[in-house]
């Protein structure tokens, strides 16, 4: 048997760690890691020394203490006797609420403005340009404050609604009250609902909502099956059976039946004492923050949308027309899918920016997680290190999960390149 001896293996010398490219990268990495660890150790060491000097320690037990302050907008049960941890969760939910609402509205306005900016209508296109430049070039903090001032200065006071000579009336057939303390809208109520389900004694989840969603989901699922079956029939016989009314009723009828069974009705806001009561109260702070964030972000989204649409070459439209597609179909089947690929990645980062900017809530007293955990809790307990650490983790968690979900979606619509 023949063996190829190959080149002689040279012995390992220490200088090869630097001079030999096979080992050098390893050397650099080890040095970098050591440097990094040293830096961390240095920071931790400083922190320990400084905390010792101040007579403090790192202790998270304050989270179990009663918070002693009230929060106006709470999505879960909370009183001033609840713990700091629960106050933080209330704040976190408020952050998520305004971020979600903001992302939705910003997308709607952004797409609208972006499309209108490309409109042939000279005036509208100019107006939209002014909108975009105005909102983009002024700090969002200023916009938040602005919106707050507009709301409290221009809308009527609750007592303007009172008495014989009321100067303000409720809008939309007496169902919505616009006041300078916020907007009151009717709330859905169930006269014989299922009640709430308490999960681990921590949160109450409305069973009615749960049932409604379940029924709706099942309806949509069956409607889909019907559609698939109809398509199968079309493939086999060539004629498409008319199923839209079956599908529509599958989706609409069960929830309506359920709602009737539950005794669904609207609870209208009513002036009682100092304020309106009943209905859902959307506070000024929420509205100002929501609108300011949405408009500010929408200005950026409009630019992204515009760039996305203009990035699809005119040849695509012409090609679609020559295939005989109508303009609507051209838009939905040819232009948008291609534009979306350009639009989505920057859109993700705009959503993240909006979520992060929602931390400016404290400028208008909206009790988000920065306002509760990073605001009052920090201030009342004096535990800066722990609260700010937790606060950062909250935002990091939100950011990373949002970008994970949206990146997953982005990968799905991404062009599969050969």
């Amino acid at each position, binding site marked *: 048997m023949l063996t190829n001896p190959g080149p002689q293996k040279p012995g390992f010398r220490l200088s090869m760690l630097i001079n030999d490219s096979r080992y050098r990268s390893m050397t650099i990495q080890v040095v970098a890691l050591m440097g990094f660890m*040293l830096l961390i*150790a*240095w920071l931790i*060491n400083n922190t320990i020394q400084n905390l010792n000097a*101040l*007579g403090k320690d790192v202790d998270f037990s304050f989270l179990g203490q009663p918070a*002693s*302050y*009230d*929060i*106006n907008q709470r999505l879960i049960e909370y*009183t*001033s*006797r609840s713990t700091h941890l629960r106050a933080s969760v209330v704040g976190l939910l408020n952050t998520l609420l305004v971020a979600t609402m903001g992302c939705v509205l910003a997308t709607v306005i952004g797409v609208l403005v972006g499309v209108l900016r490309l409109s042939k209508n000279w005036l509208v296109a100019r107006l939209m340009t002014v909108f975009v430049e105005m909102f983009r070039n002024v700090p969002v903090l200023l916009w938040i404050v602005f919106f707050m*001032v507009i709301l*409290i*200065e221009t809308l009527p*006071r*609750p*007592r303007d609604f009172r008495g014989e000579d009321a100067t303000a009336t409720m809008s939309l057939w007496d169902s919505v009250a616009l006041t*300078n*303390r916020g907007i009151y809208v009717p709330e859905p109520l169930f006269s014989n609902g299922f009640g709430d389900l308490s999960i681990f004694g921590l949160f109450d989840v409305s069973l009615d909502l749960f049932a409604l969603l379940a029924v709706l989901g099942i309806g949509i699922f069956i409607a889909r099956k019907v559609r698939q079956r109809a398509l199968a029939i079309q493939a086999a016989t060539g004629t498409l059976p008319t199923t839209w009314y079956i599908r529509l009723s599958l989706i609409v009828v069960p929830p309506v039946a359920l709602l009737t069974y539950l005794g669904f009705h609207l609870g209208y806001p009513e002036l*009682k*004492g*100092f*304020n309106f*009561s009943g209905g859902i109260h959307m*506070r*000024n*702070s929420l509205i100002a923050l929501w609108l300011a964030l949405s408009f500010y972000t929408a200005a950026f989204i409009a630019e992204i949308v515009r760039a996305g649409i203009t990035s699809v070459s005119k040849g695509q439209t012409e090609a679609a027309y020559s295939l005989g597609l109508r303009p609507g179909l051209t838009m939905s089947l040819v232009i948008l899918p291609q534009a979306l690929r350009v639009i989505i990645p920057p859109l993700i980062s705009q959503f993240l920016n909006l979520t992060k900017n929602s931390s400016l809530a*404290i*400028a208008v*007293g909206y*009790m988000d997680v920065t*306002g509760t955990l990073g*605001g*009052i809790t*920090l*201030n*009342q307990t*004096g535990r*800066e290190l722990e609260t700010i650490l937790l606060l950062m983790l909250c935002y990091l968690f939100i950011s990373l999960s949002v970008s994970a979900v949206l990146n997953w979606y982005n990968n799905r619509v991404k062009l599969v390149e050969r």
Partner: protein
Amino acid sequence: MNYRRLMAVAAVAGLVSGVAGAATLDDVKAKGFVQCGVNTGLVGFAAPDADGNWTGFDVDYCRALAAAVFGDAEAVKFTPLTGKTRFTALAAGEIDVLSRNTTWTYSRDVDLKFTFLGINYYDGQGFMTHRSLGVDSALDLDGATICIQTGTTTELNLADFFRANNMSYEPVPIETNAEARELFFAEACDVYTTDRSGLAATRATSEDPDSLVVLPEVVSKEPLGPLVAHGDDQWADIARWVLNALIIAEEKGLTAANVDSMMANTNDPEVARLLGTEGEYGAMVGLSSDWAANAIRATGNYGEIFDRHIGPDTAIGLSRGLNALYTDGGLLYSPPFR
């Protein structure tokens, strides 16, 4: 291991600017000024004017302190602090003294480790509302919308008061007094709650003071005063006795105008001790013998400071009330200078 050496190099190379030692007085003397933490803007208590000079009730205490240490009321620099940043700034040694209408509480004293120097303003939390609402007691406020300043003790007091009386309310938290005014005057809240001095100031500077009413209930004790960090008793003594000296000066009728003539000819031994013409009282605490005279010359006595910034003749128009001398039925009472 070269870890320690690396640390030393990094520490020296980067970041040397000042070392906070235990002897604050020496540090202050070395840098030539007192660094004083004040409110970012509260009418009558601290606000910068067009030239950037800070004025106000809390500001004048700092000036008196500077005058006591250096003989110069201008040897003071101001750090504007929010409710949130004030305690960390003091704990970290960024400021030498905090004079920002801060309530003296157990946990601030013990847990946050500060030394309160005394009380320069006896206050209490109250409620102000619009007269048109027809409310004349805080117990009628069930369901009201209430503006509060966050980062203060007021929001805790408020929660306790309403809980104790089994009432509900809608808190509207805001950052500064200016924003609170805005919301309250637009009637975005029915009630504004803060220290009664702040309420009076807001009421006095409104367009129509008669349309506002301050409710009779006082729901908390708010003893406001300057404070320093734990750990330097000499500095705390100086800061405490500057405050006391201003109060004693009012008791004894010493004013900015007559302090020099009183120094020359007084028959009252306590005045003589205070002004440094008798005994070595300045040296005991590490200051010149005429420190108190300097402080009084710079800002006037407690009453003068009060009248200049928040007294009846100012736009704010507060009466002395609890803050009158004990001889006039108030609570101001300084330990004897002896």
